[in-house]
């Protein structure tokens, strides 16, 4: 099994179900064990105990896409206030990841 965690946004969730992915988005809502992250659309994430998400911060989540297209968090990294991250670049990276996947991940 590959160790790659492709960077995706909400529209890619369906094609990556049951796979490990990496999502860089903005924290929109915190509801205890659950949170909503905006990354090209709303994504519901199920937090683990180590996850310390902050509202209106950018966060990078490594997790597994579930059946219902929510994401189970395995690890999260705070990327600071969302204004500090250029989300056009983030979008471009996701686009490049799938357009030129040969240098990012192996397609099954």
């Amino acid at each position: 099994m590959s160790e790659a965690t492709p960077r995706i946004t909400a529209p890619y969730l369906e094609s990556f179900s049951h796979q490990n992915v990496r999502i860089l988005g903005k924290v929109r809502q915190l509801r205890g064990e659950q949170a909503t992250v905006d990354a090209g659309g709303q994504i519901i994430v199920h937090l683990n105990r180590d996850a310390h998400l902050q509202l209106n911060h950018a966060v990078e989540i490594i997790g597994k896409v579930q059946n219902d297209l929510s994401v189970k968090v395995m690890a999260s990294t705070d990327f600071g206030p969302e204004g500090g991250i250029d989300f056009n670049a983030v979008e471009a990276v996701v686009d490049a990841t799938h357009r030129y996947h040969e240098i990012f991940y192996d397609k099954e």
Partner: protein
Amino acid sequence: MDYGYTTTYTSAGNQDGGGFLPGSQNAGDSGGAKRKFGTDTLRPVTIHQLISAHHPSPDAEHFIIDNSEATQVTFIGQIRNISTQTTNVTYKLDDGTGIIEVKMWKDMDQDTNDSAPGKPALVEQGYARVWGRLKAFANKRHVGAQIIRPVGDLNEVQYHLLEATAVHLHFSKGPLDNGQTKPGANGASAASNTNGIDSGYGGTSGGAGGMQIPANLSSRAKKVLSCIQNAQQSQEGLHIQQIATQIPMDVGEVQKAGDELQNNGLIYTTVDDNTWALLDV
């Protein structure tokens, strides 16, 4: 008779060699006396590229990525694990495309490598940028790092991945063709702005596909050259009258520019003395 020639030749050669070797010894940890410095490159890559890079032979010093030799590489990754050994520190880096080990050899003389006060430290789960050389040891790949430093601005992660993609496309699909840079040059020449033309051509000649434009070319010669370059290329090339109406420019001026371009070996005459074609196509 040819003593003079021989003497100057060898002494020049010695000077070159002497000047170069001391610098190369600072280059780092990789031994190997006969490395080809001429082909040394520093390439931005993803870890996936390092893992899938082709190794031409088990003891080769370089790897092949996108059919081109890669020696030094630079990449970014999240530190998954730091393990300090007696002779080196091993970092496990994950950039989302794969995981690879990075070894930084300890400098025994000064153990202040990354513990200098005030310097941001490398921590687990933090992002780091590495400059180093890909190595294969006992069927396992790792990177011998020259430098590893923490990433301060996380936009650098995105920047690096896009840069690696751009370089990958450069090697796999060829450099950006002139179609990308020329419109800029055209626009500038339409505005008949000499500086604009210069910068436009700077972009063109930067690509491997672009032709070398002598720096001392006059602005009218550059305009004529750009007109011929952008014209539909045919066997006959362009007639002086066509060029004069397209730029537009006085026929006499075009004639002078054409002479200059011919003297520089950039164009040649075809069906008659006043019809010119590009020499490099």
